[in-house]
């Protein structure tokens, strides 16, 4: 995702310099019309007045953002208080995405490290094994997770048959189920960038640390980890960002109580009951959060690149 931005600037030649505008024209047109223009139109919609059957009236209004942040009572005439409902949904989403990221890091880091320290000839096979699930339809993976975690599902059956538990553990429709679902959805994204970073790491530095009587775990924490930090951060962002705006895992695994941003937005565009400007405003808040995270990341990466030389 954002890691691609770093590779955009490397060496180029100018064989096709005279034709470059023509070559780029199709992508400018298609992406300009069907990605950039829609995002701009969404920004405009978030400042319009809502129409009651879904859709908008072309009249400037701050009502959508006002509804998001402030509570003015039932009739809108009370002094403005902070409206916590939507902020709480965003906070819960951040927390859920954060928990999924930490889970992915705990499993993904050792896995990536282990793969990167195998013989060079077998590494592609390990990477291949980690990549396959990423190619499998996300909806199918989420449905599989739902099937597995049900009260009567195979996981509970298995645990009960081993005698570890007497009655099924209730996992589905809890926060934990959503975290597991997000973790499962994006785990390969954590492994791959860390793997790439460890593969580039020069292990003679670990050897030097060992020669100076550093224990292995101290070496990992003080030498290896700082060296591969950009890969770790990239992995965390690749898990956190899509988790934050995810729809399928909270919707299928979380049930009604574990509402996240994705469901809040989706609801505003369903049928006639929705509120398009409010949905656009909530999307803008989410987009701003993501862009801020990506900008901080890009600045860190360019700093790290400069430090390297």
């Amino acid at each position, binding site marked *: *995702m*954002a890691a*691609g931005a770093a590779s*955009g600037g490397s060496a*180029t*030649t*100018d*064989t*096709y310099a005279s034709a*470059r505008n023509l*070559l*780029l024209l*199709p*992508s*400018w047109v*298609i*992406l300009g019309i*069907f*990605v950039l223009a*829609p*995002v701009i*139109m*969404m920004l405009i919609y978030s400042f319009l007045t809502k129409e009651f059957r879904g859709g908008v009236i072309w009249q400037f209004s701050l009502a959508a953002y006002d509804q998001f942040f402030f509570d003015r009572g039932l009739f809108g005439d009370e002094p403005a208080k902070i409206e916590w409902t939507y902020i709480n949904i965003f906070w819960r989403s951040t927390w859920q995405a954060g928990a999924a990221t930490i889970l992915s890091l705990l*499993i993904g880091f*050792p896995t990536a*490290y282990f*793969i990167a320290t195998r013989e060079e000839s077998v590494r*592609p096979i390990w990477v*291949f094994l980690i*990549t*396959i*699930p990423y*190619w499998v339809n996300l*909806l*199918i*993976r989420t*449905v*599989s*997770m739902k*099937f597995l975690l*049900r009260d*009567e599902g*195979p996981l509970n059956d298995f645990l009960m048959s081993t005698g570890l538990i007497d009655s099924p553990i209730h996992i589905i429709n809890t926060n934990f189920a959503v975290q597991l679902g997000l973790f499962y959805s994006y*785990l390969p994204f954590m492994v791959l960038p860390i793997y790439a970073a460890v593969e580039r790491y*020069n*292990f*003679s530095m670990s*050897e030097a640390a*060992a020669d100076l009587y550093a224990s*292995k775990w101290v070496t990992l924490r003080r030498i290896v980890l700082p060296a591969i930090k950009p890969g770790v951060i990239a992995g965390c962002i690749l898990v956190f960002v899509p988790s934050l*705006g*995810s*729809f*399928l895992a909270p919707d299928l695994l979380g049930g009604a109580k574990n509402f996240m941003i994705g469901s809040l*937005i989706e609801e505003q565009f369903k049928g006639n009951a929705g509120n398009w400007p409010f*949905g*656009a405003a909530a999307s803008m808040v989410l*987009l701003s959060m*993501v862009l801020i995270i*990506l900008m901080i990341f890009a600045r860190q990466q360019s700093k790290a690149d400069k430090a390297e030389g």
Partner: protein
Amino acid sequence: MAAVNDNIKSYTGFKAITILCLVVLYAPLVIVTIYSFNASKSITNWEGLSLYWYYDIFAGPESAKWKEAAWNSFTIAIVAATMATSIATLAATAMVRGGKFKLRTASFGLISLPLMVPEIVLAVATLIFFNSIGFTRGYFSILVAHTAFCIPFAYLPIQARMQGIEDSFEQAAMDLYANKRQAFTKILLPLMMPGIISGFLLAFIVSLDDFIITNFVKGAGVETLPTAIFGSVKQGLKPNIMAISTLLLGVSVVMVTISYFVSKKDNTQ
């Protein structure tokens, strides 16, 4: 590097966690595949091996719905991936072989925009846009949206591949009086082929995979496999979903295997 003692590199427990990681990644998929062959009408009890649910998809009462959704999904994925890959190939040529130019950074930003905007936000934006310009929602709106967001997925492998090809081959061809078009089609394009194939496969899978954007822009009556499966799961998990999932799983595994061998063959050349 080869001289480094393996003892220093390895940490106890990392192997166990790697195995756990693979179990976690594969267990749900394997279990769903097994249960797709269950003879039982319920998803909970195991009543022996059977192909009943596969029969049900292809010839059962809902078979028309699944066939239509599959047709929509696959034709959209093929057409969108083909268009996205063609557009991405031209763009990558300009970006890697076009020298330094003013709009380079802006162009790269525009190409990677679909990756930076969260999917649900892009879905909302596309719906709003189609609505405001009066674009009828249906098969064609899904196709256009898919083409647009598949471009970066096709672009990145192609760019990566092209950066590894020195331009001396094309220069040599041009020294021998090939024009630029010939240098491109006869020299650069064949060398880029592994990247183009990977880009196409990735775009194809991403299109086939998409639920959220499709769900927003599809309009009434048009379903793709993910939206049809989602609608069915919302009414309760049934064994036929397991069978469809297993078939789609098979498609993904075939695609990723092709992609693996294309890149492997490429490395050994």
